[in-house]
């Protein structure tokens, strides 16, 4: 990111219509997601929680996208690494921690699903599952419903490049293209499907596939939050104008192992990982703010302290919160189900 060339005239974020406060807020959510992620890893290693799946290295694209959407009205179908996205969409640290600890109050699933399986009707975050890419047709269906009801909203769906090879990706894209639906389809290409590297997954670019579905496909630097913001904002404008879907391929790197159950150095080198840490979008964003003259090391240290305190409170609260009752296992199979399952 280069702020300096524009500092005297107009900064990059100003050119994109973002205020200083907004771009600082973007950075705040990116840092919040990173710290949340790091802490969840520690909680798992300490034996406090059973599982964590990381989104480290993907926050810039997630938060950049969230800021380009209407966070009061649009519908979101994030995938399991999208902590930055759901935080920016309004989920609190406590709510995420309630999910991590599998507690009754977890708004995502009441302690039923693994962490990272987001859902909140209040925030229009649509409940998701573990079989990957099933959410793409759902996003298309929501866009179809919105179009039928003449609502000027969009649905926004994410997934990894591994998932982009599933049939549901293709079927969903094709359907959306035929019906010209207001859906933004964003692949977070972190270059690994657990252990399988990108060259064994894809023979071409994910973004190029859009040509076959009859709508634009854009590849963007996923480590550059402002660039992702720009691309998603344009996609949203196209969608609400009735011009149909956009496929976005945000390029990034999965800096963490796949999950807490994975040893990534069994299939990739430390050198490769270290090389990609240099491209991390988080310190870049911080430097951008400093270069713009709207952020300082002191403010950054204060923000880190504030987040550490918020995390501590969220963890304490979630840790102390009650588990679901064992027999609550029987609830909510059907609308009329009061636990009378045989």
């Amino acid at each position, binding site marked *: 990111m280069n702020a300096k060339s524009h500092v005297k005239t107009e900064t990059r974020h100003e050119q994109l219509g973002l205020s200083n406060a907004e771009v600082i807020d973007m950075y705040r959510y990116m840092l919040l997601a990173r710290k949340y992620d790091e802490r969840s890893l520690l909680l798992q290693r300490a034996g406090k929680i059973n599982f964590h799946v990381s989104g480290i290295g993907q926050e810039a694209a997630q938060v950049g996208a969230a800021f380009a959407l209407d966070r009061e009205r649009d519908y979101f179908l994030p995938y399991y690494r999208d902590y930055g996205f759901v935080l920016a969409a309004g989920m609190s640290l406590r709510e995420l921690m309630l999910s991590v600890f599998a507690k009754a109050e977890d708004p995502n699933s009441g302690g039923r699903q693994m962490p990272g399986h987001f859902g909140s009707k209040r925030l229009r975050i649509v409940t998701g599952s573990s079989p990957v890419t099933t959410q793409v*047709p759902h996003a298309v269906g929501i866009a179809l419903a919105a179009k039928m009801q003449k609502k000027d909203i969009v649905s926004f769906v994410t997934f990894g490049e591994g998932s982009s090879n599933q049939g549901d990706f293709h079927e969903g894209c094709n359907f959306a293209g035929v019906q010209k639906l207001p859906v933004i389809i964003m692949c977070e290409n972190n270059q690994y499907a657990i252990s399988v590297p990108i060259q064994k997954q894809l023979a071409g670019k994910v973004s190029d596939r859009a040509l076959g579905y009859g709508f634009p496909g854009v590849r963007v630097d996923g480590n550059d939050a402002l660039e992702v913001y720009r691309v998603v904002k344009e996609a949203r404008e196209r969608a609400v104008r009735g011009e149909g879907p956009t496929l976005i391929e945000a390029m990034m790197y999965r800096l963490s192992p796949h999950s807490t159950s994975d040893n990534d150095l069994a299939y990739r080198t430390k050198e490769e990982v270290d090389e990609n840490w240099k491209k991390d979008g988080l310190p870049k964003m911080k430097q951008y703010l400093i270069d713009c003259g709207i952020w300082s090391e002191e403010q950054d240290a204060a923000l880190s302290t504030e987040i550490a305190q918020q995390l501590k409170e969220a963890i304490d609260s979630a840790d102390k919160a009650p588990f679901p009752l064992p027999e609550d296992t029987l609830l909510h199979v059907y609308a009329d189900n009061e636990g009378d399952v045989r």
Partner: protein
Amino acid sequence: MPVMEYIDAIRLAMKEEMELDENVFVLGEDVGLKGGVFTTTKGLQEQFGEQRVLDTPLAESAIAGVAIGAAMYGMKPIAEMQYSDFMLPATNQIISEAAKIRYRSNNDWSCPLVVRAPIGGGIFGGLYHSQCPESIFFGTPGIKIIAPYSAYDAKGLLKAAVRDPDPVLFFENKKCYKLIKEDVPLDDYIVPIGKANVIREGSDITVIGYSLPLHFAMQAAEELATEQGISAHILDLRTLQPLDREAIIDAARKTGKVLIIHEDNKTGGVGAEVSAIISEECLFELDAPIKRLCGPDVPAMPISPPMEKFFMLSKDKVKEAMLELALY
């Protein structure tokens, strides 16, 4: 009260529900201009427009998945699978998604979806236009499964399915489309999901089944009554999931001799569960071992006429099984 075919009753149910609620819409392959390959949706696009009777790309997982998304938004989609044989690409969407949306979100989200799919053979459809896939979905909590036998029930159950807050699989029998003709009221009635129906009162033997084979059982029962004085009690399950346990137990107790019939193959079929319920609840009230007459355990139905005939149940096969049970 007009006499109409089973297929007309299904069409009428959709038409009525679409008139009552603008959130109800139909989507699937060939459902629009053509009106469906069986004419089930004929005239609906003319009345409700292209958007509410939506011709989709040929991709069953998208048909189900898009319908699920629309349902979560608050619409009431009726997704048509052209043949239940072609439904399997949508199985992940139905079992991993639709069935689990309410449960996995702790009642935050719901999926009021209907998936209609024609089942059954006897139309020279061969392996892939004849199957009964009930047992693939049966035993998946979170979905309801309906398989009507009568035209009256087809209309009332489909209307109930559209209004149901949870996902419902509606297995209509393609052989019944034109075969079953009866009085169907034009008024706005529903048949409740989860309730079986005694379609013939009797005292010697009990036949429990669903869909087309009940047609054979009814004919056989008439003949057995006249020819042999055997009185058959026949229960139409109507809803396969959740099963009406009380009705099953009552029907078994009524005569103490039970024959279960379905076209889906025997092993792991709905009949196995019905049999297990009876065994759990009233084994010692039975006067004969529970008997099942089902499709054979082969992958699917061949097209060659003698082979198709061999696979299918018929009045004669059901009659023979009923007589054997009565004489036990």
